[in-house]
Each structure stands twice: as C-alpha cells, then as structure tokens.
C-alpha cells in the first residue's frame, strides 16, 4: 500500500491516502480563493501606509506594527515606550473569552454528555432542541438577554421575589454579563462537537474504570475526558476563537466601556480613524497568536501521543 503505516503504530490511519488530494481539493479551492486570498490581501495591507479615513497607500511600511507595539505618547512624538494599551486589550479579550469558554464547557459538557446517553431515537431531538434558539438572530438574542439581566429585569425580579437576594444584582455592564453573553452566543459550538464525540465513546471503558474502583467523577476525568478529547478541543476552539473577536456581547451587555479586540479592529475599519493597516496588523497579530496557541497545543498533543 502507498504511504505506509505510521511508524511506531499509533492510531493514524491511511485508508484514504490515495484519494486524499482529491478529497482536499474542494476545501482548498473554496477556502483558498475566498478566505486565503482575502487574508493575504490583509497581510499585505498591514504593511502598507494608511490612507486617511480608510484605504491604503501602496507604500510599504511597518508603521502599523510600530503603532501596536510602541507608545509614542498622545501626540505621537515622545520617546517610544512599550505600548501597553493594545496588550491590555488583547489580554482582556483572552481573559473574557477564556472564562466564557470555561463557562460553556462547564455547562456544555454535561449537556452534550447527557444528550449522547439518551436513547438513540431521541438524541437527534435533543440536538435540535439545543440549536433551535439559534434560528433567531444573534442580535435579538443578545438584546433580549440584556432585557432579562437588567437591574429591574425578570431575573432580578424573580430572585428578589423568592427572597434569594435583597438588592437587585448588578449584572448588566459587568464582565459577568459579557461572559454570559458569549456563552449564550456560542454554546452549541461547544455542545455539538462534544456530543458527536461522546456518542462514539465505548462505555465498556467506563465499566472497566468503575470495576477498578474509580468513582464516577474520576472515571469522567481519567477515562471519558481523554477519550472524547478531540470533541472537547473542537468545542473549545469554536467557542474561544470567535469569542476573542466578538463585539456584540461586549458592546451590548458589557457596556462597551473597554475595547475588546473585536471592537478595536472594527473601529479601525468602521470608525472615525479608518486606519486599515492598523486594523489589518492587529488582525494579523491576533491571528498569529491564535495560530501559535493552537500549534503549541497540537505539539503537546503529538508529544503525548508519541510518548507511547
């Protein structure tokens, strides 16, 4: 057979090795033309001179990256210092997106697991139940979420009425609201991949673990989670990355008092500044950051596999 089995065994399969280039062709064609090419345009833009109020001048420069990394004061002529502004914005976004991802995982995993262990006939129904809300527009969902969370909104009314709290909870315009919003925006992105993975899990391994004195929770941590890891990773990527660039939830629920990466970049294209190269540069830095994160992750994964 062509290709040959992966050295050292492992689970890598080459069943469709002969057809792999044909199989990849459609995705290369569509993504190459309609995503990669535009992104390349953006890469080029990030090295061009900004045209005032949007657009670019074809004059190569590193100004956009300089602006990102060096602080030259309010008037742009002081001694360059390390620029904390954008780093702070990036860090804030990562933090928010990370918490939102954890929140989604904490609720999404049990949900996905629960669905995957329903009788085969009803599973599809549960999956639909999770996705139905997403037929309604994100903006509408977010606005009504905001309505729910308001100081005088139904949630606070309810909590006050049952006597759980004495004062309305201030949720809106807080980080918590942003995380809730992100969680709400992307929950199915967590649930569905995990569901697809758990559905495939061989429960006789859970039995073996229980037989070896593992409690259910230990079984979950030591056996189930590693086995469905591809699904969990897919879910986390699908929630974390879009959350990083999100601006609807931070703007509407968080009060937009602090830039997130998404709004910062949007501002460069749709705001007064119209600084396209800077927007492009910030995007490229975000993109590289995400790619590096994923590469570190993939590397560790490979190492864990190879250490067998």
């Amino acid at each position: 057979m062509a290709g040959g089995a992966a050295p050292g065994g492992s689970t890598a399969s080459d069943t469709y090795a002969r057809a792999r280039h044909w199989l990849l062709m459609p995705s290369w064609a569509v993504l190459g033309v309609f995503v990669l090419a535009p992104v390349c345009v953006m890469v080029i833009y990030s090295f061009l001179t900004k045209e005032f109020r949007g657009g670019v001048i074809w004059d190569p420069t590193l100004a956009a990256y300089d602006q990102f990394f060096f602080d030259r004061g309010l008037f742009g002529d002081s001694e360059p210092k390390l620029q904390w502004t954008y780093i702070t914005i990036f860090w804030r976004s990562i933090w928010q997106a990370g918490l939102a991802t954890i929140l989604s995982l904490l609720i999404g995993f049990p949900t996905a697991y629960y669905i995957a262990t329903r009788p085969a006939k009803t599973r599809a129904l549960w999956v639909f139940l999770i996705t139905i809300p997403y037929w309604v527009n994100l903006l509408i969902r977010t606005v009504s979420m905001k309505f729910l969370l308001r100081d005088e909104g139904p949630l606070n009314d309810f909590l006050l009425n049952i006597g759980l709290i004495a004062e309305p909870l201030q949720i809106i315009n807080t980080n918590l609201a942003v995380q809730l919003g992100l969680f709400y925006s992307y929950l199915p992105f967590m649930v569905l991949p995990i569901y697809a993975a758990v559905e495939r899990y061989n429960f006789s391994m859970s039995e073996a673990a229980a037989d070896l004195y593992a409690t259910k929770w230990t079984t979950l941590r030591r056996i189930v989670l590693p086995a469905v890891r591809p699904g969990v990773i897919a879910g986390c990527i699908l929630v974390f990355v879009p959350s990083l660039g999100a601006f609807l939830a931070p703007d509407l629920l968080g009060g937009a008092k602090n830039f997130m990466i998404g709004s910062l970049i949007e501002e460069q294209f749709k705001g007064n500044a119209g600084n396209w190269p800077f927007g492009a540069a910030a995007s490229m830095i975000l993109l590289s950051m995400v790619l590096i994160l994923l590469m570190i992750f993939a590397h560790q994964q490979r190492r864990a596999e190879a250490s067998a």
Partner: protein
Amino acid sequence: MSAKTDVRTYTGFRFMTILCLVVLYAPLIVVTVYSFNASRSLTVWEGLSLRWYAEVFVGPESAKFKQAALNSFSIALIAATLATAIATAAATAIVRGGKFRLRTPSLGLITLPIMVPEIVLAVATLIFFNSIGFTRGYMTILVAHIAFCIPFAYLPIQARMQGIEDTYEHAAMDLYATRAQAFRRILLPLMMPGIISGFLLAFIVSLDDFIITNFVKGAGVETLPTAIFGSVKQGLKPNIMAISTMLLGFSIVMVTLSYFVSKRNNTQ
C-alpha cells in the same frame, strides 16, 4: 438500567442540561411574550395583541422580510450542505489520509475562517471580490457563507471521525467494498452524528451571519439579519419580535415533523 448501577449516568448532568435549556430559551420566551404586546415597548406591557403579526404580513416591510427570509433560508441550506460535504471530504483526507506534508497546512486553512476576526474577513472579502470583478449579489453571499461555514462543519466531523477505528473500513474493503463504498456504507453512517452536528452548526452560523453578509451582499439583496439589524439597532421592535417568534415556531414545527417522519421510517 437504574442510575445506581449505570456507570454512564452522572447525577447533576440532567440538571445542567435543563439549566442549559432554560438559559437558552428564557430570552426567547421574553421575545415571544412581548411579540404579543399591544405596546411597542419591551419594558411596558399593555395587553395582548396580534397587531405586530399582522404588520409582518401586510405591513409596509412585509415584502422585504419575506424576500429576506427566503434568501436567508436558501443560502443557509445550500451553504451548510456544501460546507458539510466539503468538510466531510477534508476530514476524511486529514484523519484517514495518513501522514503527508499538506496535512497541517490543510488543517490550518480549514480553521482559518474562524481564526480571522469577522470584520477583517468581511473587508478583505469585499476588497477581494472587487479586485476580481465579482458583481455583488446573492452569489457572493452564498460563496462567502460556504467558505466561512466550512470550519464549523469540519470540527465536529473530525472529532467524530477520530473516534472511529479504521478496522470497520478494513473489514468492508476485505469484503470487496471499494474505498468509496467503504466510505459510503461504513464510515459515513458511523459519522452521522458528527455530520449532523456539523451541518447544524454551519446552518445556524450562516443563518446568523451579519457582518460578512452586510459587506458582500449586493444592493437590495437582504438576508434576515441584515434586514432585522437596522430595526433592532434602535430598540427591539415588536414586529421583529413577531418575526423571531414565527421563526422559532417554524423551526419547532420543522423539527417535530422531521422527528415523526424519521420515526415512521424507522418503524417501517
């Protein structure tokens, strides 16, 4: 099997699921309730009325919304279908294609659309479409949607495929199935939950997209989000809530129907 002996069940998971559904549906219940509000306010209840539903059908913008709904659904359906097909093929190559040089780049390319901030992709795509002389319109929206839906379809499919041992396909090929047959008869059915998940994600992502659509759509071609967005910008208006409620109702009817249809097929 009772919960005590069943190693699969976890106490609390059902509660989490219900909590999850409550969180998902609570805002929509608000939308539904207020779509029947006589007043145009989201904060003041003034009694029951169907006037906003009437407005959706006969109001000044009814034609626009009808067309937008048609566009949205046809685009979501086509884009999700094609994206799922493309993603399935790609996942097969990447998970079952052995080790090869283009593997990692391919994986990177497929996940690229979710890595790039949407606004950047929107502007970039627009610039790109213009530079290659694409006239903006229904087609531009469709292609863009296919492209950015691919990773959403891909990840659940890949996650699923990684969990399927290849001995099943080996057994099929041993029994004279060609690779294509082994794929269709064995791998594909086993991957179905992943494919359905991927399709649904792609579908809702396409249905929900505003930013990119807004940039690449031609003049006068609206999807539901672009049609709705302006109205919501100035506060959630009851006719929009009525539309949303109907969408919700429509999806519930569709799901219920498909459930019963598939159930009947199963019992036959």
